[in-house]
């Protein structure tokens, strides 16, 4: 399988901040591969995701998406490239006053002419596709509800469908379950995993829960202070690795002693 994404020596230092948020980050992602990114708050997980679709400009290094160097692209080329990168947010980032259907259709805006996009003239083919995806995610009956009226788990599913409408080759998920209760979190993680498997979409998920990362991902990237300190199979992650990632002894990392020790 070929690499869908490749990061080479990527660094990011925000202006007015001495310590770099990302430091020489290097890794690649294969087609359909699901990757969990873990690390303490402020380790650079969000910055990493936003560098990949250049919502945040990397200061140094190259990023290749589907073998094209996106770090060299101009504004317009970048817009085209972004269509292939779906993004899912902790706070869902839906337009609360619009219906589920309208929010989902936003995933198509990048493919439409400016005039059609401004007036929201979505094609019937796209709308039919949206209905299919809403059916698959159990949201079809809510299609004309306002996004504000949905529960957190439902909102996140709308976010997932919106991202899938872009027909992405990769999904970037920024703490997708951090605001959800455990049951909804499970539904959302399963949905992300199953849809990515089925459609051969690669996926990078930022997570705070190590157990979730180990259960749902193929590979884990551990970050600390902007550096990748672990990059390997999610089943092989050891206690020592976790201590390195979180910079704390194991005893302080376990809440309630529930986590299965790897």
């Amino acid at each position, binding site marked *: 399988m070929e690499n869908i994404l490749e990061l080479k020596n990527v660094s990011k230092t925000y202006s007015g901040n001495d310590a770099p948020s990302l430091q020489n980050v290097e890794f690649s992602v294969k087609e359909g591969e699901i990757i969990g990114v873990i690390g303490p708050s402020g380790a650079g997980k969000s910055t990493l995701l936003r560098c990949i679709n250049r919502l945040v400009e990397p200061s140094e290094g190259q990023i290749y998406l589907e073998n094209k160097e996106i770090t060299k692209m101009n504004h317009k080329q970048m817009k085209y490239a972004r269509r292939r990168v779906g993004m899912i947010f902790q706070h869902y980032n839906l337009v609360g006053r619009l219906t589920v259907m309208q929010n989902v259709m936003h995933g198509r805006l990048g493919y439409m002419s400016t005039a059609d*996009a401004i007036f929201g003239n979505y094609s019937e083919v796209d709308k039919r596709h949206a209905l299919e995806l809403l059916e698959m995610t159990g949201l079809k009956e809510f299609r004309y509800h306002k996004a504000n009226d949905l529960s957190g788990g439902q909102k996140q599913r709308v976010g997932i469908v919106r991202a899938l409408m872009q027909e992405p080759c990769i999904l970037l998920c920024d703490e997708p379950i951090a605001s959800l209760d455990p049951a909804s979190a499970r539904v959302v993680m399963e949905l992300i995993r199953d849809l990515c498997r089925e459609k051969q979409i690669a996926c990078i998920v930022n997570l705070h829960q190590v157990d979730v990362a180990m259960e749902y991902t193929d590979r884990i990237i551990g970050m600390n202070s902007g550096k990748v300190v672990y990059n390997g199979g999610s089943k092989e992650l050891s206690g020592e690795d976790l201590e390195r990632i979180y910079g704390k002894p194991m005893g302080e990392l376990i809440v309630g002693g529930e986590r299965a020790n790897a």
Partner: protein
Amino acid sequence: MHKKEADKIAVASKESKRVMNIFLVVLAVLFIGATAFSKFNPFEMLATQGEFWRFITQDFLLPKFKNWGTLWDSIAETIAMAVGSTGVSAVIAFLLAFLGTSSICRLKSVNYVVRMVASVLRNIPALVWAFILVAAFGIGTETGVIALCVSTVGFLTRSFIETLDEVAGENMEALKSTGAGILPVISQSILPAALPGFIAWFLYCIETNIRASTILGMVGAGGIGLLMNGYIKQYNYHAASTVIIVVAVVIIGVNILTEYLRKITLK
């Protein structure tokens, strides 16, 4: 007793208690100072009550009025001034707001200029603008409308910018990440999200402008204020009181209407 006092557990820091005490002392000193400076005597107000009530009951009330036609025309004129100027201002402010918010217009210098101009326009009251414009354009409704527009554009631009800033962050990022251009992002995400805020500010301005246009009339900018001022200058207090009562009723009616509109639009 004193020992018990010392044993009490404080729930706030001594520092914040001290700040509070200083604040109260400063407030008291300011009140006394201001009262002395303005020679305002609260007891005098009570003592002169008799004269005041005589004026209200004898000279002012009961309302007596004949020129109802003129009154309705003036009321209509005042409402038209308020609604017209708010409408025009909203369109101008709508466009300016996009230039004034850094989340949409990236040119910091443009943001700055728009905000500066809006602040200047807003912070000079419509009444002052009316004074200046009456001197320049003469007496009339147009002058009133322009005066209201100037201050309302300033106010609404600032308010619209705040509304946009509030909704832009998350919504912007989500749609930008789909590869959508800035115009579709604005029309499909920012505008729907900002609309309730825009409508609320717009209705608020209609309310304040009805009140303001009443006062503007008194300096010659047309409408009901002009009529009222005329009666007061002729010592025709019974007619003036009629006008004042009608104005109050109209303003209350408009407030009820905007409250209702707010309820149905913000759902």
